[in-house]
């Protein structure tokens, strides 16, 4: 609704201004028309402009995380662990899926080499979403669609190769551009999806595939 308010005010402002110019006895309405038009412009653009600034400022953290992954020498592939296994919802970037995550660790060793434990957008999404329904589709609808407002609708299909989650009307901020964390953690919506899935299924989950077509997003989890 917030997205429609700005354009609606712009249309209303233009209509009032035109009315004021067309009807000489209603000329004072021009002051109101210009005010409504200005308010519409500010309401339409302000949230997006601020979001862009905040995302850019927050990118510093993701640059550091990318450097950490690169320095640790692990391939950019994350396994999302639920809070029941790791103490809190985290993603572990490692060459292969670790059997356990030491509590409070930032980097630990596995058979395949070092593993980096990271908080993700999904971790923060779970903090915002609170208690989740036990069904995955319901949990994603409740969290990603209703609480976070990152997509308009979601559908879940379980297939032999994994769980396929499809979103429509995706509207999510780009937190980390083309940094190394993107292939590691997935996009914001994919990260939230994986974290919710790990929490609901109570087992580690990895993002196998993430593809978007316009405002539709397809995430395959395993």
């Amino acid at each position, binding site marked *: 609704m917030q997205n429609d308010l700005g354009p609606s005010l712009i249309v209303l402002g233009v209509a009032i201004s035109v009315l004021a110019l067309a009807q000489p006895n209603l*000329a004072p*309405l021009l002051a109101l028309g210009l005010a409504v038009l200005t*308010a519409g412009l*500010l309401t339409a653009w302000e949230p997006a*402009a601020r979001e862009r600034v905040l995302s850019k400022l927050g990118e510093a953290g993701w640059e550091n995380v990318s450097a950490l992954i690169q320095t640790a020498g692990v391939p950019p592939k994350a396994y999302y662990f639920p809070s029941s296994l790791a103490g809190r919802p985290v993603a572990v970037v490692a060459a292969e899926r670790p059997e356990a995550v030491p509590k409070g660790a930032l980097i630990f060793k596995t058979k395949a080499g070092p593993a980096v434990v990271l908080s993700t957008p999904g971790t923060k999404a779970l903090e915002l979403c609170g208690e989740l329904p036990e069904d995955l589709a319901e949990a994603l609808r409740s969290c990603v669609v209703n609480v976070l407002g990152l997509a308009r609708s979601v559908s879940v299909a379980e297939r032999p190769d994994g769980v396929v989650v499809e979103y429509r009307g995706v509207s999510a901020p780009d937190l980390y551009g083309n940094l190394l964390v993107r292939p590691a953690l997935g996009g914001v919506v994919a990260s939230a999806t994986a974290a919710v899935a790990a929490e609901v299924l109570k087992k580690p989950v990895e993002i196998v595939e993430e593809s978007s077509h316009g405002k539709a997003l397809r995430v395959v989890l395993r």
Partner: protein
Amino acid sequence: MKTALTAYLLLSGVTAAFLIYLNVHGIDVVTSVATLLFWASAPFLRPLPRPLNIAHTAVGAALLVAFAYFAALRILAVLKI
């Protein structure tokens, strides 16, 4: 920003209603009052991020140009040039 925008809209509405009540229909008076209200509310609306800041200033500058034009016409009429 929400409070400043609401106050700006409210003041503009009250001003428009009052000018209609006073039977003031001159576009020059209306533009001048609109410019005054715009710049009076501007400090309360700011700071704004970069592209928005530019757009807001551009609208204000356009209003100021209109105000300067009407003011110049009035001054010329008074000076009878």
